[in-house]
C-alpha cells in the first residue's frame, strides 16, 4: 500500500492559491523530502496531509485514509501517525518523562519510556523540566512524543531549524534509526544537506507546484553541467581568462560543458605557476545548485 497519495491538490485562501495542483505519492518505509522556498506551499501541503486543513480541490490519502475523518476512525488513524510540528509546542512545567508518559497513554501500542529516552538520547535529562532544556533537546523531546506511539507514518516539518550542527546530526541519527525500522517519513526542510543525507526521494515545490520529483542524485544531475570546484590558495596568480570569470570568494566554481578541456587549462596554469591543486573537485552540481536552478525565477517561468 502506498503511504501517501496526493492527487491534483489545490488550496486557496480567498483569491490566493497556495497549492496549485500538486500530485505525488510516497512509498512506505522511505524518507521523502519536500523542499522549496518560503511560500512554495510546503507547510500548507503537509498540514493538509496531517488533517489540520481542508483541501480546496483534489484528493489526499494517508495510510489509506482521509486525514479529515473524525470520530473513532479519525482517532484510530491519528494513532498510526506521528508529528513534529514546525515549532516546538510543549508544556514547560512537565518533565521529559512526564510528557512521554502522558502522550504515550493515548496510544494502543507504545514504546517503553526508557527505549524512547535512549532513542532520542535524553536518558540523562529524563527528570528535567522541559522549560529548562535547550532548543535542540526540546526538539528531541518533540520527536520522542512523535514516535512513542510507534507510528507507521511520521511527518517532520522543518525538524532541525534553529539547531546547532551537532544537535542536527543527533536528530538525523534518530530519524535514520526510525526509517531502518520501517517508518515512513515525510520531511520538509530548508537544509539541502539534510535532504541529501536522509531522503531517498526529493520533491521540490515552487509557486505551489511540483518543480521536480526525483532521487537526490538524479536531482543533482538535473542541475545542469558537471562542475569543477577549486579553492584558490592565498596569493595564487590570476587564472587564465576562460576561468577567471568563475571565481567568487576565492573559489573557482565552473559549470563545464567540456571537463577535459577546462581541466587541461587549469592544470596547465597550475604547472606553469607551481600551484598545488589539492582540493580540486569535479562532479555533478550540488543539490543546492540543482535546487537553485529549479526554483530560480527563470526556471519557473519556463516550466
Amino acid at each position, binding site marked *: 500500500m502506498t503511504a501517501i497519495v496526493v492527487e491534483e491538490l489545490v488550496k486557496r485562501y480567498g483569491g490566493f492559491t497556495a497549492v496549485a495542483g500538486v500530485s505525488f505519492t510516497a512509498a512506505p518505509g522511505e524518507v521523502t523530502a519536500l523542499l522549496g522556498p518560503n511560500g512554495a506551499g510546503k507547510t500548507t501541503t503537509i498540514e493538509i496531509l*496531517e488533517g*489540520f486543513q481542508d483541501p480546496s480541490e483534489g484528493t489526499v490519502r494517508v*495510510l489509506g485514509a482521509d486525514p479529515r475523518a473524525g470520530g*473513532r*476512525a479519525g*482517532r*484510530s488513524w*491519528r*494513532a*498510526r*501517525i506521528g*508529528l513534529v*510540528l514546525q*515549532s516546538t*509546542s*510543549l*508544556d514547560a*512545567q*512537565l518533565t521529559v518523562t*512526564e510528557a512521554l508518559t*502522558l*502522550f504515550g*497513554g*493515548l*496510544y*494502543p*501500542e507504545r514504546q517503553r519510556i526508557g527505549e524512547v529516552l535512549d532513542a532520542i538520547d535524553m536518558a540523562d535529562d529524563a527528570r528535567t523540566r522541559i522549560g529548562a532544556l535547550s532548543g535542540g533537546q526540546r526538539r528531541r523531546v518533540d520527536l520522542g*512524543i512523535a514516535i512513542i*506511539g510507534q507510528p507507521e507514518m511520521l511527518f517532520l516539518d522543518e525538524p532541525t531549524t534553529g539547531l546547532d550542527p551537532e544537535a542536527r546530526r543527533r536528530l538525523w541519527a534518530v530519524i535514520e534509526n526510525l526509517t531502518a525500522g520501517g517508518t515512513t517519513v515525510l520531511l520538509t526542510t530548508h537544509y539541502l544537506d539534510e535532504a541529501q543525507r536522509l531522503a531517498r526521494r526529493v520533491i521540490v515545490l515552487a509557486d505551489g507546484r511540483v518543480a521536480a520529483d526525483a532521487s537526490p542524485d538524479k536531482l543533482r544531475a538535473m542541475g545542469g553541467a558537471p562542475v569543477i570546484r577549486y579553492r584558490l590558495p592565498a596569493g595564487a596568480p590570476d587564472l587564465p581568462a576562460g576561468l577567471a570569470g568563475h571565481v567568487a570568494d576565492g573559489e573557482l566554481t565552473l559549470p563545464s560543458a567540456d571537463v577535459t578541456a577546462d581541466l587541461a587549462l587549469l592544470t596547465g596554469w597550475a604547472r606553469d605557476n607551481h600551484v598545488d591543486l589539492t582540493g580540486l573537485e569535479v562532479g555533478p552540481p550540488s543539490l543546492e545548485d540543482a535546487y537553485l536552478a529549479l526554483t530560480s525565477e527563470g526556471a519557473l517561468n519556463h516550466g
Partner: protein
Amino acid sequence: MDDASTLPGLVPVIGGQLRYQLTLLMRTPRTLMAGLILPGALLALQLGRVQHIGQGAAADLLAARVAGLVVLGAMSVAYLTHASSLIVAREDGILRRWRATPLPAWGYFAGRIAAAVLIADVAALILVLVGVAWRACT
C-alpha cells in the same frame, strides 16, 4: 492497523488528562496565589474586623465573608485555567500538539474542567475549615 476498539477508554483518557492538568496548575504559582493565597489573605484581614462585632452578627458576617472568598477563589482558578491559560496554550501551539494525537477534544477539555473544579473545591474547603476553626476558637 490498530482497531479503534484498542484505543484507551474513557477512564484512562480523563484520568491522564486530570493528572496532567493538576500537575500544570500545581506547578504554576499564580494558580495557587489567586485560588488560595489571595482569598486566604483577604479572609485573615476580615477575621480581624469580625472580632470586634457581637457574637451572632460575627457568625453571620464570617459566613458571608467565607462564602464570598470561596467564590473569588473559584473564579480566579476558572479564569486562570480557561480564559487565560487556554489562550496561551493555543498561541504556543500546545492545542495543535494535542490535536495531532488520538486524544478526543472532549478529553482535553474534560481534564481541564475537572482539574479546575478540584482545585477550586480544595481551596474552598481550606477557607471553610479556617473559618470554622476560627469561629470555634473565639
